[in-house]
């Protein structure tokens, strides 16, 4: 009996296989002379697509925390940022400002994940007992503190310029830009799919059932002998580590990190994506995120045909995003594909 046969659910299997196929294809483009050609109209799709798969890892981690365990983490971007900065500072060569140590990138990525997990552990050890809305405030404040630390300690974090000169493993293998974009999308998409498989495996297991029981009623879960604080801490740390992974991948794809990439806007985007799709359903949160990020595509195209300026258009897009958030909570609190009964929001 192979390992795959013993997986409890078909969904996890398919994601795992699809992820491995993507990784293989991406590697094929990266190491063989095989070349891809992109019509120029597709560039923008691939670029937003790459950002989507990176944010996809973020939303999967957040869904583990909020959707499954009910932890209201409104500073998710801080773990993304810490992962990205740790990876960047360990691997960067000849950065303009801040620290660049020039170690190989796999080490940087590993340290990025570990740094985010450690921060997640620190936040959860101190704050996991707080009531939902106050946990949201603490995590939000943590994100603000780190944002101002990144901006203000120029000698270490490079201030507003950030860390430049981060190695780009895929770009260094492939010189022509079309193939590079396709290979990046395939590799990062593969990582996201494998992540999807792993979290599906985790939440389909009895472990995930305990997490959902905590979200439904913590007191009852404790009364059947589960250490809810331990479970909540673990879920929080897993989510933070996934965000750190996303951050590390982002740094290695982008070649630079700066405070401007890690604003509260990232947190808001993944939150709205998760709520719109339907929390506690991994594929639904990814679909919800794709709708919200699809709005960016629409606004990029619409910008070319409408007479308004980019600033005005950005404001209109954010108004639409805000209204979607308000409307989802009011009219469809379980999201588009969520299960209202399971989430306990049916009235």
């Amino acid at each position, binding site marked *: 009996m192979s390992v795959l046969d013993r997986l409890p659910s078909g969904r996890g299997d398919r994601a795992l296989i699809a992820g491995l196929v993507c990784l293989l294809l991406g590697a094929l483009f990266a190491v063989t002379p095989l070349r891809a050609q992109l019509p120029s109209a597709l560039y923008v799709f691939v670029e937003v697509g790459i950002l989507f798969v990176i944010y996809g890892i973020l939303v999967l981690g957040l869904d583990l925390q909020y959707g499954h365990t009910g932890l209201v983490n409104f500073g998710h971007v801080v773990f993304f940022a810490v992962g990205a900065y740790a990876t960047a500072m360990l691997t960067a060569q000849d950065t303009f400002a801040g620290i660049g140590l020039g170690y190989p990138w796999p080490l940087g990525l590993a340290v990025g994940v570990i740094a985010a997990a450690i921060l997640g552990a620190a936040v959860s050890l101190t704050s996991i007992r707080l009531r939902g809305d106050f946990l949201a405030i*603490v995590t939000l404040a943590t994100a603000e503190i780190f944002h101002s630390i990144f901006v203000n300690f120029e000698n270490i974090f490079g201030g507003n310029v950030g860390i430049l000169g981060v190695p780009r493993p895929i770009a260094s293998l492939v010189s022509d830009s079309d193939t590079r974009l396709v290979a990046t999308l395939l590799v990062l998409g593969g990582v996201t799919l494998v992540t999807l498989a792993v979290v599906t495996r985790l939440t389909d297991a009895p472990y995930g059932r305990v997490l959902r029981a905590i979200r439904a009623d913590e007191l009852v879960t404790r009364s059947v002998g589960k250490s809810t604080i331990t479970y909540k801490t673990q879920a929080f740390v897993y989510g933070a580590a996934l965000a750190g992974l996303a951050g590390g991948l982002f740094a290695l794809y982008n070649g630079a990190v700066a405070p401007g990439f890690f604003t509260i806007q990232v947190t808001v985007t993944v939150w709205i994506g998760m709520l719109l799709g339907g929390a506690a359903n991994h594929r639904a949160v990814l679909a919800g995120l794709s709708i919200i990020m699809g709005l960016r595509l629409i606004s990029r195209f619409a910008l070319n045909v409408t007479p308004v300026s980019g600033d005005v258009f950005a404001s*209109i897009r954010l108004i639409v995003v805000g209204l979607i958030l308000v409307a989802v909570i009011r009219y469809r609190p379980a999201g588009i594909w969520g299960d209202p009964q399971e989430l306990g929001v049916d009235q």
Partner: protein
Amino acid sequence: MGLLQEIIFGLVTGSYIAIAAIGFTLIYGIVNMINFAYGEYISIGAFIGFLAANTLPGPLPVAVVVAMIGGGIVSIILARGFFTPINHTGPVPMLLTSIGLGIVLRNGLRLVGGRSARYFETETSTFQFDAIPDLPVGPVDLLGDFFVTSEQLVVVGSAVAVFASIHLLLTRTDVGIAMRAMGDDESLARVRGIDTQLIRDSVWVLAGVLAGLAGVLMAVQTNVSADTGFSHILQILSAAILGGAGSPYGAILGAYVIGLVLAVSTAFLPSSMTGLSSAVAFVILIAVLLVKPSGIAGTEVREA
């Protein structure tokens, strides 16, 4: 600049944060939600005040009154439209709704008002106090020359007037006593015949009025833009939680602590790191939630 000057700045900052924090904490205590859109209420107040100051013939106090009335009306309309219908869903959905509403309002203001900052034109007289002996301790001067502007005196004076009126409202009027009863126990208040929805509405109006006043004062001290209130929301929130969420008196105390910490840390931090002073306020906030989550005078916010 000496520490004395920074303390004056701190008292001024603390004053307008205190006015806003009272409104914020009243909503928290009685509607039981963290209203993240409250910063935008303040910005709207600032915009209304700015419009009134430029179109109406009267002096600045007229604009302030217009901003307060406008703030109250906007607040009750938004509450009826967005928060009252989901009152039963609990704190987290309401917090998320307020975040969404905040995004909508902030960008709406940007759309209408543009991105540039505007400034109130006020006549200011400055009172200079010179020839005060220096008292250097390390790099910091504990006394030093200082100045006070008439604007700053107006801000502090308005704050004191607000504290007195809120105290009278909460202790001497039926509405205020009903508010406190509802903050303690909503079901008991309803059993005693209090119209809870009416009280909730009056809290929204009161919070909007305070936001309008805080908005104009903030705008006079800084500027009028879509971010006027939003850039202060975390400080307001810290002040409210520091004082014990739901307690107006605690919020006043918390606001002055936050204001003074911001100002004093500006004095002690090296000049390249003054941006860190806002982080210091959040460190205090987290420390309070860890050590004494109920704040200086408030209720328990931990579950387990």
